[in-house]
């Protein structure tokens, strides 16, 4: 199937009223969780994942993807109007977006952020289509050693990109990998770490673990420290940016599209990283860097475009290789696997409706999001006024129902709550959850490819270095590990001396 007929198939799939409804549902929920601080797209996706079991694979994936990219739109609204990021990728938008709103320019700030997001999102969808094909073709030649090395490199990049301590990120990756080994070993059929529990024989479910670590833990953290929200009392007018605004924003939007897309391909919290990188580049190359932080429209346009473009980039490794680069993609992988669909190089040929349906739904979803976030901005301003005391019980109830509905078993609720406590405690000690959950998802794949490689090579570890792609990937991983370890060592040494 060529690209053109693929796109036609995709539009046929997504314009089916049911899929269109789920696409709208996804982007609506995405905007909602983006607007509301206290729950992010990962939490919302994990809560809603069990409800997609009864849906068709296309509908469920379209809805979950909509939550992911929809949250990027919604997050900017809270950043601009409340000075609190609705979700992590919009942190940097607070700097200039809120200042613009304080100067009575909330309209153009919201407008450029929605339109920039649309441009970034659209660019990334086109780039995704053209990159996935050659990558998937190349990936067809990959064997277990290549897959092992690529997954290994993903984990190294993940720790490299972690916002906090490098050592803590490695520890979280190891914990995630260990958790991934629970259940029946697929090669030998031996039950590992199930301690006699039949519920653990299939391994720990992704949904209760993710819901606990992201949904419950987030609520518990918010219970301690109340989120104080004061919405800027300003009239939102002139949502469409002026010609002067466009002239200043077009450069940041173009650069943000490229930065976001290419960073999105890399493992890690790419929407967050790309928005920060875009902001710092715009500030650096600006003729008037002093204006940044005072309400410069470039500081809103660039990062908001970048975080949306990153969402498209994130789909490249998932769709072409079957390797999720971030937690949201890990959840999408989980959702596809529930329907017996394995993402990877064969997805395009085996399930063209899922592949093209997803891609075209992102385009349709982006159009819906512009409409939701510009003419209907008033709704989201009202949503921002919903008090947390009403939201908290609803989030928890969704988690409880979500966990129970996985297999109508209360054990999943218990697992979720335990992981909620674990997540809450780990946050207290400044550990990041993303490396843990991603390693948990990737762990079984890593082990399978490692063991198959060893069986293939009759126990010769050199197989990983004898194959060119695997060798290059491992060398890059080693260099990253050495450079990060070295800078960590220097930092520690510096602290001891002082």
């Amino acid at each position, binding site marked *: 199937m060529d690209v053109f007929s693929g796109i036609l198939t995709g539009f046929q799939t997504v314009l089916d009223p049911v899929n269109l409804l789920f696409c709208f549902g996804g982007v609506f929920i995405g905007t909602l969780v983006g607007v509301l601080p206290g729950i992010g797209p990962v939490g919302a996706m994990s809560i809603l994942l069990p409800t997609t079991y009864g849906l068709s694979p296309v509908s469920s994936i379209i809805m979950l993807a909509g939550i992911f990219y929809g949250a990027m739109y919604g997050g900017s609204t809270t950043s601009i109007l409340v000075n609190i990021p609705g979700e992590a990728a919009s942190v940097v938008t607070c700097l200039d977006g809120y200042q613009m709103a304080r100067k009575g320019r909330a309209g153009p700030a919201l407008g450029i952020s929605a339109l920039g997001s649309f441009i970034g999102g659209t660019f990334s969808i086109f780039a995704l289509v053209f990159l996935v094909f050659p990558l998937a073709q190349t990936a067809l030649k990959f064997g277990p050693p290549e897959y092992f090395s690529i997954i290994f490199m993903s984990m190294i990049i993940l720790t490299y990109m972690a916002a906090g301590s490098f050592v803590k990120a490695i520890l979280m990756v190891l914990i995630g990998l260990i958790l991934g080994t629970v259940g029946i070993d697929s090669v030998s059929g031996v039950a590992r770490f199930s301690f006699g529990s039949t519920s653990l024989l299939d391994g720990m479910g992704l949904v209760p673990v993710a819901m606990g670590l992201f949904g419950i833990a987030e609520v518990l953290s918010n219970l301690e*420290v109340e989120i104080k929200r004061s919405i800027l009392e300003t009239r939102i007018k002139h949502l469409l940016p002026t010609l002067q605004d466009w002239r200043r924003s077009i450069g940041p939007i173009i650069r943000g599209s490229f930065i976001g897309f290419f960073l999105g391909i890399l493992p890690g919290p790419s929407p967050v990283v790309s928005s920060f990188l875009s902001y710092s580049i715009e500030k650096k190359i600006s003729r008037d860097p002093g204006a940044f932080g005072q309400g410069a429209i470039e500081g809103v346009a660039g990062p908001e475009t970048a975080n949306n473009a990153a969402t498209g980039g994130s789909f490249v490794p998932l769709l072409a290789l079957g390797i999720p680069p971030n937690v949201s993609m890990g959840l999408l992988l989980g959702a596809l696997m529930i329907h017996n669909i394995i993402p990877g190089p064969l997805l395009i040929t085996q399930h063209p409706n899922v592949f093209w349906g997803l891609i075209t739904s992102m385009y349709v979803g982006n159009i819906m999001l512009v409409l939701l976030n510009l003419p209907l901005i008033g709704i989201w301003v009202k949503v921002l006024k919903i008090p947390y005391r009403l939201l908290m019980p609803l989030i928890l109830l969704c988690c409880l129902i979500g966990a129970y509905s996985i297999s109508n078993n209360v054990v999943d609720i218990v697992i979720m709550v335990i992981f909620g406590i674990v997540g809450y405690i780990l946050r207290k000690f400044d550990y990041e959850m993303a490396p843990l959950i991603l390693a948990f998802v990737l762990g079984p794949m890593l082990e399978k490819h490692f063991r198959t490689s060893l069986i293939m090579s009759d126990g010769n570890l050199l197989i990983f270095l004898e194959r060119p792609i695997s060798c290059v990937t491992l060398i890059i991983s080693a260099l990253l590990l050495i450079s990060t370890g070295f800078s960590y060592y220097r930092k520690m040494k510096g*602290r001891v001396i002082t």
Partner: protein
Amino acid sequence: MKHKYHVIPIFFWIGLGLLVMILSYRLGLGGLRNPGPGLMPFLLGFFLCVIAVYFLLTFLSRKQTLEGTAHAEQGRIHVWRLWLVLASLFAYALLLEPLGFLITTFLVLLILFGTLDNRWSTMLIASLLTALIAYCLFNYLGVQFPKGILRGF
């Protein structure tokens, strides 16, 4: 920032790593030619121990130690809310099947709404309405809830 209590999880990781190594060893490590089910977790447990010990050593070698616990102090004000919410979540798991979805959800929501609000009328109405709406909505989505003591109705 370094707080004394940050050392607790490091000891936990070391203990966990050792435990994983012991349990994996019992599962069978196999060899490189034919890796056993315990090989991968054993290696992971080993690396967990090594990195945790390294982290412990660098942690202890740092000079600056803040005696106070900023996080703990910040959280102490509302710590009872945490216990209440956690207790209600565990109670939900315990009571869902014997009492059924509607009654358990109503009771737990009553506690959850009450955690951050103290107006009885609001709590009652919000809990009742939410339980009913959730029941209808998720039932429509195909989720099968236990009926519990309302089985005959």
